[in-house]
């Protein structure tokens, strides 16, 4: 029943092209309007925007950095020597990487399904994929606990009887992280796949390539930058996840505590220096991700077309 969608894509392609034109015209008009405005107002707006960002993002972030390095590198060193922190950082990395890998496979698969095939309930699926963006992570965690916990969950008792523990263990944490980062790769890959069309894939098939060969040799190279961008975003999101993981993990120091949970716990236990240091590491990792993305982005969009 899954019918190929080339025609419809072509139509959509032309309409989005027109949209882009319209948008750029609007942008031109907007810049012309800014040019006519009086300088006092322009400066006022700039100060307002910069001030807003300063108060909301830069100043607090800077405070974290300042507190981390208040005693030079001592804070960071102490934090890194704490076995709980060490364990939490390694665990965070493990969980994040596992979740990103799962989301990568699933995300690319779902993207292909959404773009290349027509099936009943497709719009519902597409809407469902955005759900993790709108639902509170705490709710996600709670939902997972309800379904998978060992005592009264739907699958939990059966799984636990067969030696698989999900809640208060790594599988649950990975599932929670997967859930919250789910849409990021899909939302990157889908538009690129749509723009690419399936002409090249059909050409590859006509030249004798199997579905698998076509996927690896034609589809993946076509969407590789979207994949890289999606992976980096997912990684950043996964490293920083707090609510869902905290509910699912059970917060046992040295066992199921991730970096974000450690920050909260250390802060409440008056070990501020350690809390700031771990916060700094998390923020640093996130900024690193954003830099990687910023470096990749122009290459992916212009350099490769």
């Amino acid at each position, binding site marked *: 029943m899954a019918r190929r969608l080339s025609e419809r894509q072509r139509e959509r392609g032309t309409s989005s092209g027109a949209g882009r034109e319209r948008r750029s015209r609007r942008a031109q008009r907007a810049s012309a309007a800014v040019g006519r405005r009086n300088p006092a107002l322009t400066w006022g707006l700039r100060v307002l925007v910069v001030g807003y960002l300063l108060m909301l993002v830069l100043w607090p972030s800077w405070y974290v950095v300042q507190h981390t390095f208040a005693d030079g590198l001592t804070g960071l060193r102490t934090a890194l020597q704490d076995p709980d922190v060490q364990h939490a950082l390694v665990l965070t990395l493990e969980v994040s990487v596992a979740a990103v890998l799962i989301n990568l496979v699933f995300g690319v698969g779902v993207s292909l399904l959404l773009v290349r095939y027509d099936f009943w309930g497709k719009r519902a699926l597409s809407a469902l994929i955005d759900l993790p963006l709108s639902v509170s992570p705490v709710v996600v965690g709670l939902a997972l606990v309800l379904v998978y916990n060992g005592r009264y969950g739907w699958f939990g008792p059966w799984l636990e009887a067969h030696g698989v523990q999900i809640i208060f263990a790594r599988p649950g944490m990975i599932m929670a992280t997967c859930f919250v980062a789910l849409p990021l790769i899909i939302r990157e890959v889908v538009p690129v796949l749509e723009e690419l069309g399936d002409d090249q894939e059909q*050409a590859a*098939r*006509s030249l*004798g390539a199997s579905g698998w060969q076509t996927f690896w040799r034609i589809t993946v190279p076509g969407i590789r930058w979207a994949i890289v961008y999606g992976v980096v975003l997912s990684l950043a999101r996964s490293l920083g996840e707090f609510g869902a993981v905290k509910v699912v993990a059970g917060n046992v120091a040295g066992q199921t505590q991730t970096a974000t949970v450690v920050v909260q716990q250390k802060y409440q236990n008056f070990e501020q220096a350690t809390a700031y240091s771990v916060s700094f590491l998390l923020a640093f990792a996130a900024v690193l991700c954003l830099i990687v993305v910023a470096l990749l982005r122009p290459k992916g969009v212009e350099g*490769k077309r």
Partner: protein
Amino acid sequence: MSIEVKNVNKRFGDFVALDDVSVSLPTGQLTALLGPSGGGKSTLLRIIAGLDSADSGTVSIEGVDATHLPPQKRNIGFVFQHYAAFKHMTVAKNVAFGLEIRKKPKPEVERKVAELLDLVHLSQFAGRLPAQLSGGQRQRMALARALAVEPTVLLLDEPFGALDAKVRKELRDWLRRLHDEVHVTTVFVTHDQEEALEVADEIVVINQGRVEQVGAPDALYDAPANDFVMSFLGDVTTLGGQLIRPHDIELDVLPGEPGAVEGVVSRMLRIGFEVRVTVLTDNGEVVTVELTRTHARRLGIAEGTTVYMSAVMGATRV
């Protein structure tokens, strides 16, 4: 017969794309599937290629039943209207794709690619990306890529449709010459009757999901099976209630021939060497007649002149 299509039906929802189509396409020839847009010709080509599947009916290629074979097992070459170039590969890599899939030894691949690039005059562009080529060059690359796998049949879906008029004409001549060199059974889809008449050995006229007529270009032009084929292959007008080509009407200022139709010239339009005359007959028929400029001058006709029209010897009429 190389390609045998039998009783093929295809629907897209309520739309009937192909209605019980049966057609045989001869080996080693260049066949055109000609018809108006939305007539089903591209669908037929895609079903032959295996890129679409028929709702019912069978397709066999060189005696092998291909109805349920996936495209990669049919040994076809397919050329798309919009080139479908592999954007991330160089021209040489594009052409080598089918050979690499078939795991041919490297020296053989290199030799074959060089040979094909030479054939399509793209040798000096081997290292470029498709984005650095013009439309005509991209389509030639796509042709070389399709030919690389030595297909049993070469299928081209409106191959020159996205190119401008001049390049189109060049590539058309070039395709004809290429076919005379390579001799692979070739089927191409077009809605341009001039293209079909000029290039093809055989034309299959398809309209509203049905085959209207199959035959050599001359046969189709001279003996069209019905009104549709007659009017699709060239300009037509009516004389005495019959369809006739405007250049098949003899015009005279004197009532010479018995049975000539009398009329008054209502409009004259000069286009280069020819003159298009619109004549209004007594019984209200509007007839278009084409004649050369010198002929018109010799007759001395102008708007308002009374003329007598008759079909020339051997005129095609439906």
